[in-house]
Every structure is written in C-alpha cells, then in structure tokens.
C-alpha cells in the first residue's frame, strides 16, 4: 500500500475495485465502513454483489475481465471534463499526453457496451473520484489475476496520477496483499529477479555486496524462473529439484493437474510445512515446521508495517521453527555464519537491505514500523511517494483493454470466476480450524437465479462445472450475488478444486495467472 490502513478513514472518496474487502481483509473492511459513516463516498466496482455494495454510493457492476476498459473509461471522462490535476501532472509525472490520447476512444458509451456499466455511472464515478478532495484506491486479486493484470494496475496508477491522488494523507493506490506475509516474502527477495529490498539481481554492485556478506564468490546474475515457469520447467524435465516452504501449490496454482504432473516429474522434492498437504504428499522429504505461535520473527503487513511475533508455545513433537531448519541446511551446505535467533537474522537483513536498515526488534515492539526505515532514528514511512516517486517522475503508461484469454462461447457459455470466502483462507490452515470448518464446510458455486431456472437447477443441487481443462462437481448456490452468465466459486476446497478449471494464461509481465476469468459449462447431474 502507498498509504496506511488507518489513513483509509481519512479519505473523502474510496474506490474499491477487485477486492471483496469485508471477506478477504475484514478489518480493512471496517475502516472503509468507518469512512463511509463519516461521510466518505464509496465507489465499488465488482461483478458480484459483495457486502460493500450495500455501503456504496455507487456500484459499478462490470463484467468479469473488463476492468481495464472501465478504468480507461474513467480516465476518459476525467480528461474530457478537465478534472485532472495539471500542476501535479506537470511537476511530478511524465507521459500524460500519450495516455490522454490513448483513452480518447474509451467513451462512456463504448465502455458501457464493453463492461455493462451504464454510461452515466461511469461519468459520475469519474467525477466523484477526481473531485475527492482526498481519494484513495483499494484493490486486490480481482485486479491482478487477469492476463491484463499488470496493465490494470498501471491503469489505476494513471488514474491516481492524473488526479494527483497519490502521496498524500488519505490519497493513494493501495493493493491489499493476500496472505499474512506476502509483503514480507517479496521484501525479502522471494522473487526471481530481486534480492532483499527489491535490489535487482542484475546489478553487479548489489550482487557484490551480498556475495561479500555471505562469503561467496558471486551470485547468479540472470533473473530466475517464476513459480509457473518452474512448474513448466519441471514438467519438461529441465527443473530437477525443488524446495517448497509452507506453500501448497497443488491447491493454489492455476491448472492444478499440470502442477501435479510437474512435481511428480521432479527428481527430488522437499516440502517444509506444518501439515502433510497435497503438495507434501508428493515430496521425497517432508520437514515439520512451526506454526506462528511457536516461533519468533517478523512479518510485514499490506501497509508495509514490519511487526513482531513472539513465541508463545513450543512446536509439537520434534517439529522445529522454520528458521532453525533452514539454518541447519545452510550450515550443511557450507554456508558461513550461524544464527542464534531470528533477531540475529534480522541484524543481517538490516545490514543488507536499505529499506529495513533502521529496524530492530525493540523498535518494533509497540506498533511496528512501516518501511522504508532508512536509519535507526527514522520513524518509518506511512505515506509513500510524498515528494517524488521511487523512479523520480511518475510514468503514465498507455494500456489498452483486451478481452480475457478465454471468453464464453456456445460450448462453454458461462464466465467462471474465483475468489475467497470470509471463513477460509487458502485452504490449508483454516480448514483445520474446527469452528471455521463447521460454519462453512462445503464448496459452492454461485449461479444467478435466471440461469438456474433455464438449466432447471435448484439451490443446493450438485452440478458439474466443465471447462476445457477439467471438471468438478459442486453444490449450486442460486443467488443474485452473481450476474447472469457468471459462475463464481471459491478455491479453498480440495473436494472441488476450482483451479482444475482455471486457465494458466499468464500476465506477460507479472506472470500472475488469470484466475478471475475463464469459460465453463454447467451440467445438471442425473439424479
């Protein structure tokens, strides 16, 4: 997030797109409600009737996969009506002219046709957002899990920069990160192209610094493979060995049958986890790690706040804290240095990572710190891009709408889209919680009453969903939450893995798979 969680309550206009906030980031959902109660105007763009729709001043119900058309349409109105912030654009950005021309064709009428959102709502949303005075954007996977995911994010940045709604209290562009430490995993270099603190592996200076600290000659300088590319490489036999820490790609990856084939094809697979997950079952060695309450360490939340977890209990049996296990392996594989505690590891991190440089465990104790924290006396950074953007001037990007990689056709007439439910989170841990499992034990596919009627499907009946890649049986839930022609399903449940149906079409830049849209047909099962 460019801004803070607490900051959301300061906004005058909140634009939520591709985020079912009250279910996926519930406590941020509370902040949004607080702002609305205080008088902020909420615009929700979502194909489903999510809870926040009931709090919204304006609901834009775009067809799944048409966000980019919608966003360009908003910018079109802002340009046409002269609602942009000329001063901000001149002083802080570059490339506006090209974008201004590019959005010319996205008239409200045309966008209405592409997205299904009435033209007057597009105009009104654009005005509300532009006028703020403090407007903030919240988005999540609904925006990124498309082949145009990166373009979608750029379109949001275009919108914010054009209106000068970034780098101030109450105004920003805020991705809501999914799992509890996605932000931290990325910060720490859990990505193929960067070392900790987003320092590029291609930069020889950076590599030299790390190599020196780690006591090795040099580090690899070519960016590596992404998770989806690794799976392909494994399937083709180019990747031979994998080490998977606390993840269950067999459930969360798009196109799971490929993943299974890929992992089975490995020569050697190590999985370190707290449960024998579907992925761990395929491993050669399974190492039992520790749950959050069983170890000390830091996690970084979606607003870049580094926070400290204390150890409350011991891991069960012989299970060990994950940092200890990896530390043991480092030692065995000849790495220098030993770590006596997570705090010890953090000291090494802060020496090598400028954005974490000012972090110590004792400073984190009360409220945590938002990076960048460049020095020990720096208070942290609640709002990013205040004076300038990371690269200096903010760059506008021309991005054009493309329809989803796979669209409904005669044979597969429904648009299929996925998401999470309030009571579960990425399947593994929430499903081992008795209460959460009891209240929400079964997968469901949401289908609009009109579609249900024409197929003769009743609420609660089991149906089969079929895509070009696979099929699953699932209970139908007849509800107005989804619009006609759309099927929604969550991906928490292995009994009916939604990802058997989804498509491994990747965003060309981020390599995020398109979970949010593919085509399926619905088959009534014979009783």
């Amino acid at each position: 997030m460019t801004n803070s969680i607490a900051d959301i309550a300061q906004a005058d206009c909140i634009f939520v797109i591709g985020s079912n906030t009250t279910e996926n980031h519930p406590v941020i959902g509370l902040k949004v409600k607080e702002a609305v109660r205080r008088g902020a105007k909420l615009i929700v763009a979502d194909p489903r009737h999510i809870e926040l729709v009931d709090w919204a001043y304006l609901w834009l119900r775009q067809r799944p996969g048409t966000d980019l058309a919608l966003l360009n349409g908003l910018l079109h109105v802002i340009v046409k009506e002269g609602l942009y912030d000329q001063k901000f654009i001149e002083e802080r950005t570059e490339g506006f002219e090209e974008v201004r021309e590019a959005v010319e064709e996205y008239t409200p009428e045309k966008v209405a046709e592409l997205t299904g959102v009435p033209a007057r709502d597009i105009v009104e949303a654009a005005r509300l957002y532009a006028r703020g005075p403090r407007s903030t954007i919240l988005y999540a996977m609904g925006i990124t899990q498309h082949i145009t995911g990166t373009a979608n994010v750029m379109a949001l940045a275009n919108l914010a920069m054009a209106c000068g709604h970034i780098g101030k209290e109450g105004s920003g562009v805020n991705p809501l990160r999914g799992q509890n430490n996605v932000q931290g995993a990325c910060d720490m270099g859990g990505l193929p192209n960067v070392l900790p603190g987003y320092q590029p592996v291609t930069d020889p200076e950076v590599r030299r610094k790390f190599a020196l600290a780690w006591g090795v000659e040099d580090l690899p300088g070519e960016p590596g493979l992404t998770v989806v590319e690794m799976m392909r490489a494994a399937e083709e036999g180019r990747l031979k060995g994998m080490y998977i820490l606390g993840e269950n790609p067999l459930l969360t990856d798009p196109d799971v049958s490929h993943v299974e084939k890929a992992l089975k094809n490995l020569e050697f697979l190590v999985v370190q986890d707290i449960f024998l997950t579907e992925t761990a079952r395929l491993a050669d060695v399974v190492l039992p790690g520790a749950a959050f309450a069983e170890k000390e360490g830091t996690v970084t939340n979606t607003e870049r706040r580094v926070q400290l977890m204390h150890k409350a209990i011991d891991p069960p049996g012989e299970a060990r804290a994950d940092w200890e296990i990896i530390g043991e392996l480092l030692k065995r594989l000849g790495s220098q240095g030993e770590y006596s505690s997570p705090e010890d590891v953090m000291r090494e991190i802060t020496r090598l990572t400028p954005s974490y440089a000012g972090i110590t465990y004792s400073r984190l104790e009360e409220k945590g710190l938002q990076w960048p924290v460049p020095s020990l006396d720096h208070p942290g950074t609640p709002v990013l891009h205040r004076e300038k953007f990371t690269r200096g001037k903010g760059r506008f990007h021309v991005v054009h709408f493309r329809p989803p990689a796979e669209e409904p056709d005669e044979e597969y007439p429904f648009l299929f889209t996925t998401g999470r439910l309030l009571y579960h989170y990425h399947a593994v841990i929430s499903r081992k919680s008795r209460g959460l499992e009891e209240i929400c034990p079964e997968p469901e596919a949401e289908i609009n009453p009109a579609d249900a009627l024409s197929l003769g499907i009743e609420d609660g009946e089991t149906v089969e969903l079929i895509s070009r890649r696979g099929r699953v049986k699932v209970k139908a839930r007849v509800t107005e939450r989804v619009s006609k022609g759309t099927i929604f399903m969550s991906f928490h449940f292995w009994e009916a893995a939604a990802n058997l149906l989804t498509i491994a079409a990747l965003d060309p830049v981020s390599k995020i798979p398109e979970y949010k849209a593919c085509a399926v047909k619905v088959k009534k099962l014979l009783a």
Partner: protein
Amino acid sequence: MAEVTLTIDGQRVTVPEGITVLEAARRAGIFIPTLCQDDRLSPWGGCRLCVVEIKGMRGLPASCVTAVAEGMVVETASPAVIEARKEILSLLLANHPQDCLTCSKSGDCRLQDYAYLYGVRGDEYQGERHNYPLEEDNPFFIRDMNKCILCGKCVRACAEVQGRSAIDFAYRGFNTRVTPPLDVTLREAGDCVFCGNCVQVCPVGALTEKQRLWQGREWEFKKVRSICSYCGVGCNITLYVKDGRVVKVTGYENPEVNNGWLCVKGRFGFDYIHSSERLTRPLIRTGERGSGQFREASWEEALDLVAEKLREIKEKHGPESLGVLCSAKCTNEENYLLQKLARGVLGTNNVDHCARL
C-alpha cells in the same frame, strides 16, 4: 485547540475543550469505574457507574457524557457518589446469577472487580433471576443472556464498528434483552459474521469464546503478543496460553492497525495449530511418489539427505535445475534465509512464492 481548566478531587487540571469529565479524570490519573464506556464506541451513559458530583449541577451526572467546562469543580469519590455506585452494583447483582465460582470471566470481569472494590456482596436485594436458555448453536461463542447487564457495548460494537447491526435491545423493563431480530439465534438470523468483537467488549461473562471454556482461570493464562496468521492486514493479537496450548485470542489495541478489532479467522481460527494432523517428525518417502507412504526419520538423517540430494543435483545438472518457493506464511527471517540458501549456496535465482497466485 482551546483549553479549559477544572478541578477534579481538589486537583487543578487543564485539558482540551470538548472532552468528557471522564476523559479529563483519566488524564489526571484519577480512576472512575465504567461498565458501558469504551473509547472506541459512541458514549451512551447507560450504566451510570461513572457518576460524579459537579458543583452547581443537580443530581449526579454521568461523567462519560458530560463535557468539561471552565472552572468546573468535580468530585469523583464523594460519599454520595460512592453510595450511588454501590446502589447500582447491588441492583445489577440482584438479578445476576452469581456463579463466579465457575464463570469463565471470573478474574477478568468488571462487575466482579467493582463489587469487590466497593464491598458489594450481592445480597442487598433479592431480585428476580432470568432463566434464558444459552445460545450455543454457533461454533465460536456462547451467549448467556442471564449474565447480561445491558451495557449495550456489544450492540454498539456490532453496529458502529462491524457495521452489521446483528443484535439490538428488545422488550422492556425486566425483560429487556439483547438479541438478534425475532428472538432467533445469531446463526439462524444470518446477519452475524462471527467477528466476536462483541465478545471482546463485553465487560461480564455474558459472551464467552467456546474454545476457552474450562481451559483455566483468567489469571493462569500467560499473555503473549503476536500477529494474526491469516491475512495481510496483520492484526495485532494477544495469545492466551496455558500448559503449552493457546486457548484464546483477543485483539490487541494497536491504533495504527486493528485497534483491538478482529475478524472471525483471527479470533477463532487459531486452533489449527493444535490439530492432531500436525507433522511432528521428519518424513522420508518410502512408496511411489504421490502414494503418501512415508517413514519417520531423525532430523539428522532427513537434513543430511536433503543437503546431499540438493548438492548432487546441482553438480549433475547445474544450479538452474533447482528451484525454491518461499512462503507468504513464514516470517521475514525465514524467507530471507531460504532465498539466501537458493542464491548464495545453490546458486540459482529460481526463487518465487505462491502468493502471486
């Protein structure tokens, strides 16, 4: 901001205009008991335990809804005030099932604390008791309206913070009760999202986490601060621990993040850590890949095998034939070490995580 100066219990205090007498007293370090007040909720003035004497004002105003004024003279513990508080507590206890012996809230109960503080035994009046059935049909918490003192905190938390308004006051007089509409249970009514924020604000034992029941007395729990393991909001939590088990989670009031509020996962979803399916020993595959057949191994054996195999593959096929997935569920330190292992030791940048999924 304009300031006013007033006198509380003989002490002159200068505070910002517009705050309440209660807040002014707290800032001056003067204690005033409250049952229905919470800084994070709108003031209500319903329990009247926070009454004070203010010179020139009739009766005993509730300090939580009385604004400070220049020159005000306040007594927070005059005989009249103490008497009034005792009376309120006596009346509350007159209809209260006094089962502190087995009540989970004992030791962390405002009513119990104030009864002790003011020496109210609860036998001053013989009041009528309620005989409501327990509401136990949801998996997360029990609602025992026999113990409810009608402070309305849960109602306000649900409406003002959670924005659900799943519960409200119903009926009148002695029969007044906090309930979902139409007297059904929360689960039946369907508006509740089981965030349990009502449970956390309840000052007495009317709302209790199921997992916490019979696990120990409040004073036996070790309290450890941590961060919720479910989503990227990073809510601050307090773990209540006894005998190596986490028995309860509450929200910690970090005003920058969640200010004490949580959702159902963070508050009630922690029991997976005690699941009997947890892995407790390293495993080495014995059967076909995917058959799920393993044998238990020692750490020595498992780690040696992993190190040996990784080294062997690196030597035979080159570093590019190895890949590592970091974890969005592990700590920064752990992710750091794993990518160090990949880059610094195995020599590959094939490092990613599943969370872009």
